[in-house]
């Protein structure tokens, strides 16, 4: 298994109050597939995203990615893990305003031992013509494509997307989904999309449904459709 989560729990404490954001969640993900994580607000989607991405730590349980246990890694090894294995796409793009489109992508490529060609990725994401612009000069859709380019360019094995279409209009959202699908097909990258939008699940190989920190459903999608066919 490419990703294996065993009884992963995460507890947030605020004074005497405890909130179990994740409660003994276990699942397995295969390499090269697309997954969606759905669930209402507070169901633990983002917590799972953070722990899988090595941004946060689980309190209990274990997670293995490519046979490496990330839950036992120290900060330095977690940074290496993020650098070598994971690409992130955030809802609000999180591009670095002080860098141009090209430099934003290059900042990511520079960390990788085996990066893709920056210009090639920019062309793939259809933002090559914007390469010398700064993020604030781009539309939301363009910014998100740059963010995907930044995630893809270091050639990661896993791309985690947190509501990648959450701030975009319909057309831009569809384009972003198509690009993620293209990346998955072309590079065999495992993609995990956290979303509120149930329609997106239809392009995934499987969907994890979370509720109150628990994994309530892990459903394969035998009738997977292409991103272009997804409508809502």
């Amino acid at each position: 298994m490419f990703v294996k989560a065993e009884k992963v729990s995460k507890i947030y404490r605020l004074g005497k109050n405890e909130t179990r954001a994740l409660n003994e969640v276990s699942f397995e993900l295969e390499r090269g597939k697309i997954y969606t994580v759905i669930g209402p607000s507070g169901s633990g989607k983002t917590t799972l995203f953070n722990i899988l991405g090595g941004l946060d730590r689980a309190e209990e349980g274990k997670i293995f990615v490519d046979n490496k246990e990330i839950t036992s890694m120290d900060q330095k090894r977690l940074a290496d893990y993020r650098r070598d294995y994971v690409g992130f796409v955030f809802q609000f793009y999180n591009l670095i305003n002080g860098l141009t489109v090209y430099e934003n992508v290059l900042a990511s490529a520079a960390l990788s031992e085996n990066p893709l060609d920056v210009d090639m990725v920019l062309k793939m994401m259809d933002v090559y013509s914007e390469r010398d612009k700064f993020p604030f000069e781009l539309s939301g859709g363009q910014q998100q494509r740059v963010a995907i380019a930044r995630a893809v360019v270091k050639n990661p094995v896993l791309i985690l997307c947190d509501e990648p279409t959450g701030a975009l209009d319909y057309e831009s959202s569809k384009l972003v989904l198509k690009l993620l699908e293209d990346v998955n097909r072309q590079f065999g990258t495992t993609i995990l999309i956290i979303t509120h939008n149930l329609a997106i699940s239809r392009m995934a190989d499987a969907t994890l449904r979370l509720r109150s920190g628990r994994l309530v459903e892990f459903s394969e999608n035998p009738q997977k459709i292409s991103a272009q066919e997804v409508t809502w």
Partner: protein
Amino acid sequence: MVIKKIPLRTIKRDFLQFFSIIMLVAIASMTYTLFAVSMEDIDRNYEMFKRDYVQEDGYFITSKEVDESLLKDKFEIDLEERLFYETQQNGITLRIFSISDKINKPYIGVGKMPEEGEILLDPSFFKAHQYQTNDEITISGQKFKVSGIGYLPDYIYIIKNDQDLLPDPEYFGVVMMLKSDVQKLFPAPRVHYYSYKGKVDNIEDFKGFINSNWGLLKFVERDQNPRIIYTEMKVENAKRITLPISLFIIIVSSFILFIVMRRVINTMHAEIGTLYSMGYTQKDVFKVFMRFPLYIWLFGSIIGILLGYFGAYPFAEFYRSFFTLPKLTSFFPWQHVFVALLLPAIFIFLSGYFALRNFFKLTIVQVLHGIDEIKFGKLPTIKFFDRFEFKTRIMLKYGWRHFARELILIVGIIFSTILMMYGMTAKDSIIVAIEKAYNDNFRYNYLYMLNSTTEHPEINLQSSAEPYNLLAFDVEGTKASIMIYGIKSNSDMIKLYDEKGKEISVSDQLIISKPFANKLGIDEGDEIKIKNKFTGQEYTLKVYKVADLPVGNNGYMELESFNRLFGYDSGEYVGIFSKEKIDIPESSVFESYTKSELLTTIKASAEDLSKTIGVMALIAAILALLIVYVLSTLTINENKKNIGILKMLGYKENSIFKMVLGFNYISFLVGFITGIPLSKLTMDSFMNAATKDIDFAMSLDLSINSVLSTFIILLVVFLLSRFLVRAKIAKVMPVEILRQQVD
């Protein structure tokens, strides 16, 4: 690492904000470099001049010619007689000295050493009268050719009288010529002037010996010679203020940088979190963000050092011309450049480090989501404020919320007030106060110092003239000295008043001047132990009153009581105060000056002082402008959302401005009001420290004029910076805020 570009781009984006901090650092470095380098330049040149041209350890004037070899052998000193004469022509006083071979040798700045029929002029006089070498000048009816400019090691601060405060080359100059030429001009010397070099173990014995054998008229040790010591004092003062001023500006800029850095980091939290998510480590991020202080330090200190370095030499030149010091050597002040670089570096990097340190304590998820973001826009809930109407309440809450920066603003205004007041007060104290003193206290128009203390039957004193007697004393346990005058009771020439303006009647008891009382920390009723400078005889006198005089180490008592106490016969005196010019045989006069000469000198020098004040006021104003601008901009940037919402609610820009930045007015006033007594305190302690080891005393009093001028200048600067900031409020568009809210 491409991410290294982030700081420079951010600085470019928020250019004015960072530029202001860079300018603060630049001013600090410039101030340090300017003063340190120029003072070092003056110091080194002065030390070399002192050593190579053999500055005297003292001089004395006797009524009879001394036995030089006897004195040299007995006290193991080097001694040289200098022919000395003073002449007046067209209102200009020329003090003529013969050129010495051993002590106080002249340095030829321009031209050559004079031969027979030639003279050297002091540089200030030469310049003020636009002389050229080979010009002719007539002295006492005889023509001389100007062979060049000569600098004398004992006439660095060229004042005519010991008690003068400022030089006046328009009306007073020093002339150097060959001994033979002086002898031709003035064949019979009235007095004998000697310079000595060497450490005398017992100065009292020395003076006593000279006095008993050859009649000592005047004895001045090097450390009590204002023509030498004023220079050293001014250089010391300049050195003393260099470090505190620079340090203060650096610390204020570091605090502001700390606040700005925190703000920058906070606005970039998502970007930093993303860098982490990409695999960048804390160390990588630290290295990138420490470039903010690096650039600010580098740009600021380099600009400052360059400005300071290139300004230092003209500045030193200005000082040198003020003091008539020659430039003998050049050097590169690497140690000051190093300090000017290091000093800001320490504080700037520390502030950058601390701003980042707190941020690094957050987890990556916290960094990504920016938990501090909420804190910045949030106003405190303080019940006390709720009693006020809405706008005032919000204004107070903003003030409270940004308490730290309001405090920096207050400190900045205090500092600017002190700096500006110092400049204003220097002018007030030296010019206005002395003018006032010479109108209110010293009512004579002519002062004659005679060359002996006798009854002077050769002089016919008119009703408009009053005799006085004078003795100089050392104050035991201090390095201070006092000149005690014996004057007529109910004198029309010297009027003394107490601090309330009530006239003090002169009696057989001692009245001392306020600056002297302040300097020694004594008051009415206290006793002082004094020792006659010539005879060494000791006296213990009780201070009867303290007279409100602006300057001078003076004491006064009734003439006959003075004579009785200090061993003179009744009717003896050494000088005359007079309303009108009186005819005194030339051979009886030691020195003389008129009040109008002194006042002209003061007015002429006012221009130079105004320049200094201008520079100080400019630095103070720029500082205030930068501090108010940066802090206000920060507040606006942090509160853009709130400003946008207030605009959406229908509040006008003026009201919003008052709500968000209205507290600044309170801070400004608090800063200014606190600055006034602190200015007085700072200046007093500064003056005490500066004059502690020398024979000089002056009161620094703040006048209403200087307080008002300072207030008006600072208020204009404050309003200007607010005007600049106000444009930022106008730029906040509610629609953008709405869009951000949707995001």
